[in-house]
């Protein structure tokens, strides 16, 4: 099973490398959305610092959404998804491998760019650390929960809006704790609480999402 999971991760990373442009798009989207806020609101450093954490989190969610569809749709279209489901390995394990590969190429870059945007939004140092910590725990949740939505809608021809309607409400808890942590840190409070809350959601998603994804994939292939 390990061999199969490793090979799926390797294949998806290799495909991502050969499709570099698709990697960059959500990232640019992330940068542009965040930079719209100082332009549209007053460029008052104090106000930017207050809203910065929340803005970056919302933009990260939207950018993550944008990248979601690429998780299963290409596989659905070229038939490799059928081969995955018909392999003797547990589909949940292979799905987890795919989500992990997807997070490496979509979630991780968002996290790496976030400090740059933090500077743009005039976030204080403590808030920046809080933002990084919550993004590190939160972006895998985004990928895992989003994967359920993608698996459910991959059989439909136009699933873009439906996917957002399905998945965005599920992101709200992560968003609340993620944005709150940045504010707390700026106010000099401990961020252990919010980070642990998101961590609990990550554990829950890690254990249950693969099962839901595999069930959803089977339904979509029928």
């Amino acid at each position, binding site marked *: 099973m390990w061999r199969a999971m490793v090979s*799926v991760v390797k294949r998806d990373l290799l495909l991502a490398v050969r499709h570099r442009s698709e990697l960059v798009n959500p990232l640019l989207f992330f940068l542009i959305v965040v930079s719209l806020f100082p332009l549209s609101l007053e460029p008052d450093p104090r106000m930017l610092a207050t809203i910065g954490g929340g803005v970056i989190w919302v933009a990260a969610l939207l950018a993550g959404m944008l990248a979601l569809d690429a998780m299963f749709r290409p596989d659905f279209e070229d038939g490799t998804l059928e081969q995955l489901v018909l392999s003797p390995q547990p589909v949940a394990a292979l799905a987890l491998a795919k989500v992990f590969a997807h997070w490496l190429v979509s979630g991780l870059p968002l996290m790496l760019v976030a400090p740059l945007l933090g500077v743009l939004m005039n976030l204080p140092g403590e808030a920046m650390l809080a933002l990084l910590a919550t993004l590190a725990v939160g972006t895998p949740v985004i990928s895992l929960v989003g994967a359920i939505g993608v698996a459910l809608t991959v059989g439909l021809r136009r699933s873009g809006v439906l996917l957002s309607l399905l998945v965005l409400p599920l992101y709200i808890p992560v968003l609340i704790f993620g944005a709150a942590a940045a504010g707390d840190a700026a106010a000099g409070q401990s961020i252990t609480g919010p980070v642990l809350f998101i961590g609990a959601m990550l554990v829950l998603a890690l254990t249950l999402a693969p099962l839901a994804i595999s069930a959803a994939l089977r339904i979509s292939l029928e």
Partner: protein
Amino acid sequence: MTPGPESPSCRLEAVDLTCERGDRRLFAGLGFALNPGEALIVEGANGAGKTTLLRTLCGLSRPVTGSVRWCGEDIHAVRPEFNAALNYVGHQPGIKADLTPLENLRVDLALHGLARGDLVDILDRVGLYGFEDVPCRTLSAGQRRRVALARLLAVPARLWILDEPFTAIDRDGVGMLCEAIDVHLAAGGLAVLTSHQAVELAHGRVGRLTLGRAA
């Protein structure tokens, strides 16, 4: 590609299958049994339900009534064992256009828990010598089909389910594939295929099933 020694009970059975697509009933009460060394050629007009039948046989779709059995057990109850014995080539070849044939086959092997086999030799046998390291995107439709068929030779499985395997393949390729199916049957394998061409198999008992006579 040589299936192991067969226990006589390991056969594929369809019991009282009824399948629908949308609101349309494709067939009802369909039943057959396929023993080791036998092939079943499914025929029928376009839209008669050939692909649906094949997808039901390999467990991708669920029938409205009835069941598909492998070694006497419902395939959905013995999914890992059944999938390990299954090699399915569907309408979409199931290969990544941005990977080379070698890379595609390596993933297929890993999915079946196999170590690296002699893939270059297998690609040579399906007529893709010299194309091992070319992205599949640049190959012709027939060559891409051959990559999918190379999977049959690379991953050993007792049951082959092939949906229109001859599509886009030239005459040499058809001969090569017929020969591969012959060898597979002679070694005790089973095969279910659909085809609009006349399939000539030398060995093995070949059954024919025509769908959609009522429709």
